Each structure stands twice: as structure tokens, then as C-alpha cells.
């Protein structure tokens, strides 16, 4: 028979083994000069692995261990990492997230390093480097890529509808009747009896192919859903871009834009909000031939490329009442965790990723657009090789007709208000005018926290 003592001993032994094993792994036991780097996009893993190799060759005293987690886990793991002192030394930052981290003292300002090493901030695409100066005036990152939005369209559908590439690339828009953009969307919508949106007898309640798809209601930024319509209607997110102190979601220019946008649902050209949000996302539905046009960001080129059942092409965003096309321009940068024990190695890696050497590697992979302007031709060539003419993405940047992502240290709180507010409007449970109330809530959050 087992005695209690032997049982206890066995129990203690079994407890001790994994506990000891666990001690060997943690951040403390890391070799000097080895840093941990996180990113969230699995498509970018190969090229950054390549960067890490080159970096190690150039700096033998440093090495980089890359870990990748998907978008949602990435941020919750990062937060848990901050709390538990297990965050990565360097991680990919996003405009919607880093201001809060900076506010809480979790990311390292790099001004001193930039000054010490004379980093030339002029090599980046115009405006990009400034995005990483926080509300406190300190710099928190060096840009590494950028993105804009365009329309991805199903070329088989547009040909069947008799719409030429020229027409698609010279669309106009206004908040009253949607301009030629809405005419095209209307023509591309097909009901279950193969009647088009502009043909007699069109049945808007039984749609086979929607002219326009959308991923969600856009929350507070509308990056891939409504941002450019609002912008070409002459609307701005906030007073003082990008560090908004007062938001304008109640502005008539904004609410009429949203009113027009959701009107497409009433007309049958866009799926209801419930359909758009239920289950799989917009690219899968596009790939299944349910949508003729879907707006999306340049980081999605790879995903659209893997859709085997449809041939997707790119079209420019429309020209609006302000007389030009506009796109949001956002980008990523690498930021250093304030709690890192490897500051110098971390800075060396950030500096390397912001250099043309690294950006050329990124460019050649043909996944995202590099932040260094001189690396762009290589990226263009790489995208051309996979069959993409990426000009529509580049034009607004070259013309300077871009606007930044609405950054904010209270982004999570603003999102918590704006996401449900926009969802209510898009599912017709509230009128666009209700956004004025949401705007008040947002501004109250901002004033309470400053």
C-alpha cells in the first residue's frame, strides 16, 4: 500500500520537474545580444527571417529570434508581456496601438539614438517618419512600410457588365447620388434572375452578386470601408491631425457620407450588415464570387493573389467633391519595449530594419510597400511579377493626397464607443445623426484623459 509520504514525495517530484524545466526558458536566461522580435503578419515572416540573417552577418554580436502571432493574440499577448516582464525586446507597432503604450511608458523613445547615429529621416516616403512621433513629441519608431487603399475588382464580372478598365479608373463620387462609382456598382450587382441593378425588374431582395462588399462598419477609422469617401467630401477626423484633441464624427459631411454608404444596402448593392459580419470575411466571399468590388488595403495583395476562382484587378479610388482622390496612408514601424534588457541590440535591429538594406529585402518579397523611397522600384517590380499593377496604390502618395490614421492614446476607448455606434447605423438600428452623440462620448473620453 502506498503511504502518504511516498505519495507526497511523488507529487512533489512531479511538480518540481516541470517547474525547474520552466525556469530555463524565460527572458532572463537569454544569451546576451539575443533579442526577441514579434510581428503579426504571417506573410511577412519569410522576409523578416531573411532580414534577421543579414543583420546577424553584419552584427555578429547580435542575433534575432522572430515570433509571429495573429493580430488579436498579438496585442493581448503583448499586454500580458508588459505586465509580466516577458514582452519582446522589439515588436511591430501600429498607429492605433503605440500611442497608448507610449502613454503608459511601455515603449522606448529613440530620439537620442537617432541623434547619436545621425539617422537620415529623409530617406522615407514623405510624411511617414512623422507618424512615429508621439503626442508627447518624442519619437517611438522608424517606419518600415506603408499602405494605402484601392478597389479590388473581379475582372470577369466587370467584363461581363461591359465596364472598361478606363471607366473603373476614372470614377467620380459625391454623397448625393454616388457619382459614376455608384452607377458602376449598380451595374455590377446581379439578382438571382440575372438582372442587373440598372435593368428593369431588378429584385433587390434576392441578390446573387453584390456590386460592393465591405468587411465591417469601420469603427472610428473606416480605414478600408469609408475613410476615403469622407475625406474627398472634405471631412477630417479631428482637430489637429493625427493627434486628435476633438473629433468630428457628428459633422454633417461625415454623416451624409455614411448615410449615402449605407444607402447602398437599401438599394441592394451591398449586403446587409448582418450578412457582411456573419462568419467568414470579405476576401473569402469575394473569392467565392459573391462581390464584384471590395475595397481593401495594400497589405492584402497577397491574400487576393491566392484566390484561385476569381481574377482580381485594382482600380483607383474615386474623385470626390474636393476635386481629387484621397487615401488613408498608414504604416508600421518597429518599436522597442521600455523594459528590454538589450537596449543596444534592440536599437541596432530597429535601425537595421529602417535601413535601405533591409527595406530592399522587404521590397523584393513583394508583400508590402517599403518605407524607404529608394526601395520602391524593387517592390513595384516584385508586384508586377505576381501580376499586379500597383500604380493605384502609389498615385495618392506621389500626389500627396493622403491623410493619416487617426492616432490616439485613448484609441481603445474611442473604438469601444465608435464600433458599436457605427454598427448600429449600418444595421439601421440608429440614424447617421446618432453619431453626434457618439462623437460627444468620444470627446468626453479625450477631455477626461488629458
Amino acid at each position, binding site marked *: 500500500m502506498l503511504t502518504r509520504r511516498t505519495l507526497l514525495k511523488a*507529487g512533489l517530484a*512531479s511538480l518540481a520537474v516541470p517547474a525547474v524545466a520552466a525556469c530555463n526558458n524565460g527572458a532572463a536566461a537569454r544569451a546576451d545580444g539575443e533579442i526577441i522580435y514579434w510581428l503579426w503578419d504571417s506573410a511577412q515572416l519569410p522576409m523578416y527571417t531573411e532580414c534577421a540573417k543579414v543583420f546577424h552577418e553584419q552584427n555578429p554580436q547580435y542575433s534575432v529570434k522572430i515570433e509571429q502571432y495573429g493580430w488579436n493574440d498579438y496585442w493581448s499577448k503583448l499586454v500580458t508581456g508588459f505586465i509580466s516582464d516577458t514582452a519582446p525586446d522589439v515588436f511591430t507597432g501600429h498607429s492605433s496601438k503605440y500611442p497608448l503604450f507610449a502613454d503608459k511608458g511601455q515603449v522606448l523613445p529613440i530620439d537620442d539614438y537617432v541623434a547619436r547615429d545621425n539617422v537620415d529621416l529623409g530617406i522615407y516616403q514623405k510624411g511617414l517618419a512623422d507618424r512615429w512621433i508621439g503626442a508627447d513629441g518624442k519619437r517611438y519608431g522608424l517606419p518600415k512600410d506603408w499602405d494605402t487603399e484601392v478597389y479590388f475588382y473581379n475582372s470577369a464580372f466587370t467584363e461581363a457588365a461591359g465596364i472598361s478598365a478606363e471607366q473603373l479608373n476614372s470614377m467620380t463620387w459625391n454623397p448625393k447620388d454616388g457619382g459614376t462609382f455608384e452607377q458602376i456598382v449598380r451595374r455590377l450587382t446581379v439578382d438571382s434572375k440575372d438582372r442587373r441593378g440598372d435593368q428593369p425588374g431588378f429584385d433587390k431582395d434576392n441578390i446573387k452578386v453584390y456590386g460592393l462588399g465591405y468587411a465591417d462598419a469601420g469603427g472610428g477609422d473606416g480605414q478600408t470601408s469609408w475613410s476615403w469617401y469622407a475625406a474627398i467630401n472634405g471631412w477630417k477626423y479631428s482637430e489637429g491631425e493625427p493627434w486628435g484633441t476633438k473629433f468630428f464624427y457628428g459633422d454633417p459631411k461625415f454623416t451624409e457620407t455614411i448615410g449615402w454608404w449605407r444607402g447602398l444596402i437599401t438599394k441592394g448593392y451591398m449586403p446587409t450588415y448582418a450578412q457582411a459580419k456573419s462568419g467568414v470575411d470579405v476576401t473569402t466571399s469575394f473569392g467565392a464570387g459573391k462581390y464584384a468590388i471590395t475595397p481593401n488595403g495594400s497589405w492584402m495583395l497577397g*491574400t487576393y493573389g491566392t484566390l484561385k476562382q476569381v481574377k482580381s484587378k485594382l482600380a483607383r479610388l474615386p474623385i470626390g467633391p474636393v476635386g481629387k482622390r484621397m487615401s488613408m496612408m498608414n504604416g508600421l514601424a518597429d518599436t522597442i519595449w521600455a523594459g528590454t534588457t538589450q537596449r543596444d541590440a534592440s536599437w541596432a535591429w530597429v535601425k537595421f530594419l529602417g535601413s535601405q538594406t533591409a527595406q530592399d529585402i522587404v521590397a523584393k518579397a513583394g508583400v508590402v510597400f517599403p518605407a524607404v523611397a529608394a526601395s520602391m522600384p524593387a517592390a513595384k517590380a516584385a508586384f508586377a511579377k505576381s501580376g499586379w499593377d500597383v500604380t493605384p496604390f502609389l498615385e495618392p502618395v506621389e500626389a500627396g493626397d493622403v491623410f493619416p490614421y487617426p492616432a490616439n492614446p485613448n484609441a481603445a476607448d474611442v473604438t469601444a464607443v465608435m464600433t458599436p455606434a457605427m454598427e448600429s447605423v449600418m444595421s439601421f438600428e440608429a440614424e447617421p445623426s446618432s453619431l453626434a452623440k457618439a462623437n460627444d462620448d468620444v470627446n468626453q473620453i479625450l477631455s477626461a484623459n488629458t
Partner: protein
Amino acid sequence: MRKLGVGRTVAWVMLFILLIVTLFPFYWMLRTAFSDNTQLPGHPNSLLPVETTLGAFKRVLGLSTIEEAQAQGGSGAAVNFWLYLRNSLVVATITTVCQVFFSAMAAYAFARLRWPGRDKVFALFLAALMVPPIFTTLPNFVLIKNLGLLNSFAGIILPGAFMTPFAIFFLRQFFLGINRELEEAAMIDGAGHRRIFFGLIIPMSAAPIATLAILTYINSWNDYFWPLLVGQQENVRVLTVALGVFRSQTPQGGPDWAGLMAATLIAALPMIILFLAFAKRITNSIGFSGIK
């Protein structure tokens, strides 16, 4: 019983429908896992796998290259299955053994030993049954962090290792029902509480203890929230958490459904095997736990 009338036929039909509803999701997991992910959206109606392939299983287990995986609509991420399986086994086994053993000891004390304040302490333990886990989860997380046990097995296991109110309650009810005469006979023979507990109570309670152990094992195996918080690092990540991470690693915009279902099946496999091996015992014992 009664003759096979209309009523019984209807009842059989209902039971049959019920079994279909229960089993269909399992079939659908299989069908999707054996499909080619890039072809899935185009064939939502196909009841058979679309372009049957083992690709999903291969990329989940890391048997295909990143390029192959991405061409098939995957992310190139793999589930380090054997490592996570080991972690799940370690966590579930240690938790179960410790929890059941310590709870049994406490239950014995509550059921058989006489000491001042016993019933009041028991009532306090019972009240803990109502404390929502999230309420203890938040401070426990801070405690585990302060103890420096984040990302260690000890951190995952400790909170459940000593007791749960349910386990003590459950076993106490059974110990109360054990015949006192045997125990008194043993006492006359000069046996102490220790010998009675190990020599008499435990052997006589083999059935409910096994029941509790199985239930604890299932729950511990399936636990997600706590290991997600304290055991995020590779070396201690359990299967349920790994599956969550694998899900979020699928390419932005185009989830790798086939890979996901393959991973799901793989994660559920150990439980299914355990279940097949102990089907009779589990079903009987769960019935048992319902009676006080």
C-alpha cells in the same frame, strides 16, 4: 414496457434526429479538414471533402514547407503538436492527481473527523462554489506574476492543485454514506485516522474517486482562460491555447479553415481516444455524480 406504438416510433425518430445533430459537426470537421482550403469557398454545398487532400494535416503538424502551406491557403504556422500534447498531459495529470487527492483528504475531514467549527468551515468552502472564477482569476494572475510563476507549469497548475469546492462537496457526500461500522471495527483494532483513510476510505471509494478524476481531467484538459493568461509561452502552452494561437495565425483576411479543422481534430483526438477507452465508465460515472 409498452408496445411499439405511434408514440414510440415518434420517440425513436426524435432520438435519431438528436444523434444526427450531435454527430454532424464531428463529420463536418472531418470533411473540411480533408479539403483543399483554396477551393472551399467555391463549394459550400459539397457534403464530401473538396479535392481531398492531407495537406491541412501536414501543414498543421509542420510537415510541409512554409511556401507549400501558403500556396494551400495556410499561414506557414504549425502547431507543435507533440510539445503541446505533452504540456496538456502534464497539466491535466498533475492537476487531477493533486486536486482529487487533497480534496479527498479534506472531504474525509469534513465527513468523518470531529473538530470545532467544522460545519462553519465547510459552509465557507461551499460558499466558494459561488465565487465566479474571473473574480479570483484577476488577483490570482497578479499573485502568480508576483511569485514569478508566469509561463511555468507551476503557475498553470497551482490554483487548481489543492482543492475545488465542488470536489470536496462531491466526495464528502459519498464519504458520509460509507458504513461507519467498518470504520469503528478498524478503530477498535487500533488503526488511526491515517490508516483508516488510506486503508479503508480510499479503497472503498474507488468508484466516486475515479468519477471525480475523470471529470477533473476533462475540465482541466479543456481549460482555456487560465492557461491563456499564465501559460502563453511555447514551452508551457497547452493544446487549447495552441489552437487559439493557430487560429489567429492564419493569413489575414483568408482563414485557413481546412488547417483549423485539422488542428481542431488533432487537439480533440487525445480526448476522443480517452473517451473511447473509458466510454462505459465515463457515462456511468457522470450519471453517478448527479445523485448525492
